[in-house]
């Protein structure tokens, strides 16, 4: 039920529900961006039940993936 799907904002309209078009791969859906008032086109959001819950932080995502790549390479010790 708490499934959240990452998507990228294509466009935002000025309305009380702050509806926007969000691309989930090839699928585009109308989503409320009311809870992410700062997010504009290009931003990544996680959407649940037709509402964007929060913005994804690309820098955090990259940092985590890089630290995992080091773990896979054995460049980091047992602490991970």
């Amino acid at each position, binding site marked *: 039920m708490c499934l959240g799907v990452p998507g990228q904002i294509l466009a935002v309209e000025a309305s009380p529900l702050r509806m926007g078009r969000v691309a989930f791969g090839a699928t585009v859906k109308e989503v409320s961006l009311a809870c992410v008032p700062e997010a504009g086109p290009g931003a990544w959001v996680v959407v649940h039940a037709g509402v964007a819950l929060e913005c994804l932080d690309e820098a955090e995502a990259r940092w985590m993936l890089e630290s995992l790549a080091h773990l896979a390479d054995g460049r980091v010790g047992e602490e*991970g």
Partner: protein
Amino acid sequence: MKFVEEYRDGAACRALAAAIRRKVTRPWSLMEVCGGQTHAIVRFGLDELLPREVGLIHGPGCPVCVTPVALIDQALAIAARPGVVFCSFGDMLRVPGSTEDLLSVKSRGADVRAVYSPLDALALARELPGREVVFFAVGFETTAPANALAVAQARREGLRNFSVLVSQVRVPPALEAILASPRRRVDALLAAGHVCSVMGTAEYLPLAARHRIPIVVTAFEPVDLLQGILLAVSQLEEGRAEVENQYARLVKAEGNRPAQRLMAEVFEVVDRTWRGIGSIPASGFGLREAYADFDAGRRFGVAALGGAESPDCQSGLVLQGLLKPMQCPAFGGACTPDHPLGATMVSGEGACAAYYRYRRFEPAETP
């Protein structure tokens, strides 16, 4: 960056599993709170990658599964009313009430519709001004902003033919009940990432301190789950009991403030009954008095009466992590996804349905 494929990388999963193996020195039981996490663990076989010492217990985080029979009976009574369009998330439609489910009512002519969002139900109310559109507002904190948004918008638009039957539950009080139980067998928690994206992490600090338990906010992909497990096992091995955030790409410590304001405007904290578990104080949200006009129970004069669970269903023990699905005598026999006795066999996030779908029939170990 697509935020999905990167977190399903096999090499990263193997490296994390190896790191967990190097770290662990004794048996630990970890509970993943969210049904979405349970589903991913079973689907990707992540539990089979783990060393024998690390056991996973499936938690209560499936809102469909914990919605009490009495509320489903209330939904059935409202859905059967002439003129009602009853809207629900799809996985509620086959959850059994005392005697039947929403699909049975639909088969007798009721207008029951599966929708993706409460905003879809709101759109229906605009399109069908002569009908009463009711949305079954089930969910954890993740779903509360969408439900609150729909109610607030209905009032803003003056939509008088829209109402909600609310069954909103809150995770921390349920965890408190599980951790305070004398039967507790959980050493660490993987907290539900999307719940925390709304609520933040502050609610979990007193839980971690009071029960001396590591709590790691964790996302839903295989790499995420294994990293969450590594962080939890590291804490246990090092004697720490802290709240950590594995899902930092989405979850902020303070959560989503606009979503919290919206929820506080429409909802207040109430006691709730959890199917299979019982009443838990302050474990849910209900509509504030200012929004009572949108309460479907009041509008139709239908109360939630005590409904009876099938005596053969042991979902309460499954939801508390005290029983694995295949240890239930009814699992796979009297109870299957086609003929479910309880909600944990219906919802895609229910532990019983996940075990059935991915053919986990062998009781390999005690939980």
